Structures are given as structure tokens and as C-alpha cells.
């Protein structure tokens, strides 16, 4: 028993190391001024490069555009996913299997296959290179996830709250704003965070619809990676990881909290 427990703990230490070490090394590299083979730890550390990267106008503009694109992409996805998820979770929709398959198609499709054609179409429409074009293109990746996550979360939603409001004379708009939104707020926040994260990491669906004019942090990281400055590259990569890290912590907070509709029915 004791041996097995040690074995388990060791297995977990390895697993967690696998998940943590690359990010820790990235953090050290971002702070290292001169860290060469065979030094296991850097001679000198300092926030100089990190400060330069954060102060750089290219980084600031990319962070701004990235946050704008992903926040808007999440809002658009949520707006479209709420009716869809309500229908799938609360309504009596036929052909569920077929609808599930249709939602899988954009998820499994190689982004390149869609992004190249969208680039041509958006250029012809004269809107390539705008934030709106990128937000629209990101729906390929974000909307299916928003619908799937929200549907799963709404499966436990107790629709009797809405029926009660209805029997008291509330109309559709009032039910949605006064019953659904407050009760489903945690689910909407979780789905919104996950959608933001999916949008934030998009590369090809940003690069091609953005036609080189919309530069988000992942595009900066890949550009920096082909340069020769590991400290600057690590600093940009580290900064790029911060917004989605916050989003996932927010999502976890609301995911672990008991849903507001639980235990309040009847």
C-alpha cells in the first residue's frame, strides 16, 4: 500500500512537471539576461527585457487588438449560442445527431482549408484586414464550442422557473432578462471564457482574414520565434499567455460554484 502510494505520487509529480516545466522555463528565459549552454540557471536575471516588451508599441497594439477580437468573438458567439443551446437543452429538437455532426464539421476542418478561401472572399468584399472580418472568421472555431459548452451546462437548468414566470404573466423578453439571464449567468460566464480562450489562440483564422493588418499576440510570438532573441521571444510569449490564464481562472471559479438554479426548484 505504502509503495503504491509513493508510486502514485511519483507518477503525479512527473505528470505535473510535464505540464508546468515548459511554462516555468519560459518565465525564467523571459527574465534571463544571458543564459547560455551549459548554465542550468541564468547568471543574471532582470525585468529589463520584459519591461521593454510590455512598453513596446507593437506589443501594446497587438494585445489591444487581440483582446478586442476575442472579446467581440466571444460576445457574438454567446449571442448566437444562447438560442441554439436553449433549443438543444430545453426544447424538443429533432435530428439532434445530425445537428451535432454539423457542429463537428467546423471543429475538425483544417483551419487552413477555410482560412484561405475566406481570405479571398473577404478581400473581394473589401473588408479583409478589419477587426470585424477576423471576429467573423473566428466564429468557425468559437461558435461550435460556445454551443456545445452552453448546451451541456443548460442540461441541468430547471425550466420550471420560467414556467412559473410565464404563468404569472411574464412575456418572452421579461422571462429572458429577469429569469434566464440571472439564473444562467454563471453558465454564460463559463461559456464566454472558454470562447474567449479559443479565439485568443487562433493563428491562421486571424492571419488570413486579417490580411496582415490585424496583428494579435500569437502572430507576434511566431514572428519573434524566427528572430534570434530568446529572451524577447519568451517575454512576448509570456505576456500572450496572461489573458487566457485569467479567463480560465474566472471560468474555474464559476464552474466549481454550485449553479444558482440547483436546489431552488419547486
Amino acid at each position: 500500500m505504502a509503495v503504491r502510494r509513493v508510486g502514485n505520487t511519483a507518477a503525479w509529480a512527473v505528470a505535473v512537471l510535464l505540464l508546468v516545466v515548459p511554462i516555468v522555463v519560459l518565465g525564467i528565459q523571459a527574465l534571463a539576461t544571458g543564459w547560455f549552454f551549459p548554465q542550468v540557471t541564468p547568471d543574471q536575471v532582470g525585468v529589463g527585457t520584459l519591461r521593454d516588451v510590455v512598453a513596446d508599441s507593437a506589443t501594446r497594439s497587438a494585445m489591444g487588438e487581440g483582446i478586442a477580437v476575442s472579446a467581440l468573438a466571444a460576445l457574438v458567439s454567446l449571442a448566437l449560442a444562447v438560442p441554439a443551446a436553449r433549443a438543444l437543452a430545453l426544447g424538443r429538437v429533432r435530428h439532434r445527431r445530425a445537428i451535432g455532426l454539423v457542429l463537428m464539421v467546423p471543429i475538425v476542418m483544417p483551419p487552413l482549408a477555410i482560412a484561405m478561401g475566406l481570405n479571398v472572399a473577404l478581400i473581394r468584399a473589401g473588408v479583409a484586414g478589419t477587426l470585424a472580418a477576423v471576429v467573423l472568421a473566428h466564429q468557425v472555431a468559437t461558435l461550435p464550442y460556445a454551443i456545445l459548452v452552453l448546451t451541456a451546462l443548460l442540461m441541468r437548468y430547471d425550466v420550471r422557473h420560467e414556467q412559473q414566470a410565464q404563468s404569472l404573466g411574464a412575456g418572452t423578453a421579461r422571462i429572458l432578462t429577469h429569469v434566464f439571464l440571472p439564473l444562467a449567468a454563471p453558465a454564460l460566464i463559463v461559456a464566454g471564457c472558454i470562447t474567449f480562450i479559443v479565439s485568443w489562440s487562433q493563428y491562421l483564422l486571424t492571419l488570413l482574414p486579417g490580411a496582415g493588418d490585424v496583428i494579435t499576440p500569437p502572430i507576434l510570438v511566431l514572428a519573434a520565434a524566427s528572430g534570434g532573441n530568446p529572451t524577447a521571444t519568451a517575454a512576448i510569449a509570456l505576456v500572450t499567455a496572461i489573458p487566457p490564464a485569467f479567463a480560465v481562472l474566472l471560468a474555474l471559479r464559476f464552474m466549481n460554484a454550485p449553479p444558482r438554479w440547483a436546489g431552488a426548484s419547486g
Partner: protein
Amino acid sequence: MRPPLAGALALAPALVILGLLVAVGIGYAVAQSLGMLPLAGDAAVGLDAYRALVTGEGGAGGVWGSAAFTLWVSAASTLVALALALATAGWLDRPAGRLRRGATGVMHINLAIPHVVWAIGVLLVLSQSGLVARVAAAIGVISEPAEFPLLVRDPLGIGIILHYATKEAPFLALVAYALIRARPRDLDSTARSLGATGMQRFRMLTLPTVLPGLGIASALVIAFVFGAYEAPVVLGMDSPRMLSVVGLDMFSASDLTLRPQAMALGVLMAAVVMTALLAALAIARRWR
């Protein structure tokens, strides 16, 4: 009383937008791959781009090598990720402790890290002058970077495979965890009190719970890696390259005659993924 905004029509806006985006994206790719809508000169409609692509004439070259490399990397990454996820599933299938809550939290954070960022981290750990090589040098196993085995930018794609294995294993493990949590709770302790060993509980409780869902999730992972771009750019070498890297190179080449071939490659990749998806669903249905 029916709940409002939950009829079948409520699905329409989302499905129409998704359908349009996919149809327009693939549609324009098909059109340009067939020589319609040329960037310069007259339209010459035909299958020339596909012919040039598969024969390797006219600049693409080595697309079969890239296809084989892409399939190898997708399959290997998915298998390693699945093995790692299954190795943790047995542990997840036990009463919760603080350690596990911390571990699943770390997995969620790992999931949120963009692939480009993770790829840089993997490069810093595994390259010939990376952290592992430095530790090896410190304990005297190697004395210079060139003695360290080539784990990134290597011909077998080991760096890319390790990238996706470590990035997708937490995803698969969390899928397994969700399935375990959806199952009646006390099964594990009941089996334990009836004298089932750890291996028996894993085989007869954990595996049947997680395998169907993990099958679907693995299909998503393999399709995702098949179309991957960022990690192969950071962790791959110039030859062999993954298909998406080849495709974007042709798409953005100054030689505009390569554009139809890039589109043809995109169309073929989409066709491969769709065929595989439909085949997987047909097999899954037969099994049930």
C-alpha cells in the same frame, strides 16, 4: 407551456452563420483550385493544380512526403496523449483530494495556453541547448550541445509530437474526468469493498466509463493535429514539413501560379478529414 426561444428555429442563426463561413471558405478554395477567379491572366478551368500537386511538378514538390509525415505526427501525438490520459484516468477515478483538485486546475490552465506559447516552452526545454541538455551537461552525461539527441527540428517530428501529446493529454484527461464524475459515485468504493484490486477496478470500472467519450475526443485531437500550423513552424524542420505549413507557404508565395495548388491542397485536406469523420461515425454506429 413551452419555454420561449427554444424552438427548432432558435438554432437557425448559428447554423446559418457556420454553414455560410464553411461554404464560402471551402467554396472559394474549390473555385481557385480549379483555375477559376485567377489572380492574374485568364481563367483556365481544369484539374491542372491537382495534377501538379500530386505529381510534384510546378513547385509544390514532396507533397506525398508531407502527407505521410502529417499522418505520422497526428497518429503518434494522439496515441501518446491517449496513453497519458488513460494513465491518469485510474487515478482520477477515486475519491477527490486536494492534490487532485490542484492537478485538474493545472490541466485547465494548460488547456488555455495558446499553442504558439507552449511550442516556445517545449523548444526551451528540449532543444540541444535547452534545459534538459543543460541538466545532462551538469551531471556529466554530455559535454556539448551536439551530443544531446535531436528532439526538436528533427526528421521524425519528435518535438511536434511531444508538443501535441503534452498539450492534448490534459484535454483528454479532463474529458475522462468529466465522464467519471457523471457516473454514479460510489462504484469505486463499492468495488474496493468487494475486494477488487486496482487493476481490476481500472479495467472493469474506469475503462468502460471513459473509452466511448475518449474515442470521440481522440478523433477531434487527431483531426486537430492533422491541420496544425503553429507548433510545426516552431518545432519542425524545413523538410519534411506538415501539410498546413506547405499550404500556407504556397498560398503566400510570390509565384502566383502556386496559389491554385495551395487551394487544391486545402480542399484535399478538408476532404480527407470529412471522409475520416464520416467513416468514424459509421464505424461507431455499427458498434452500437
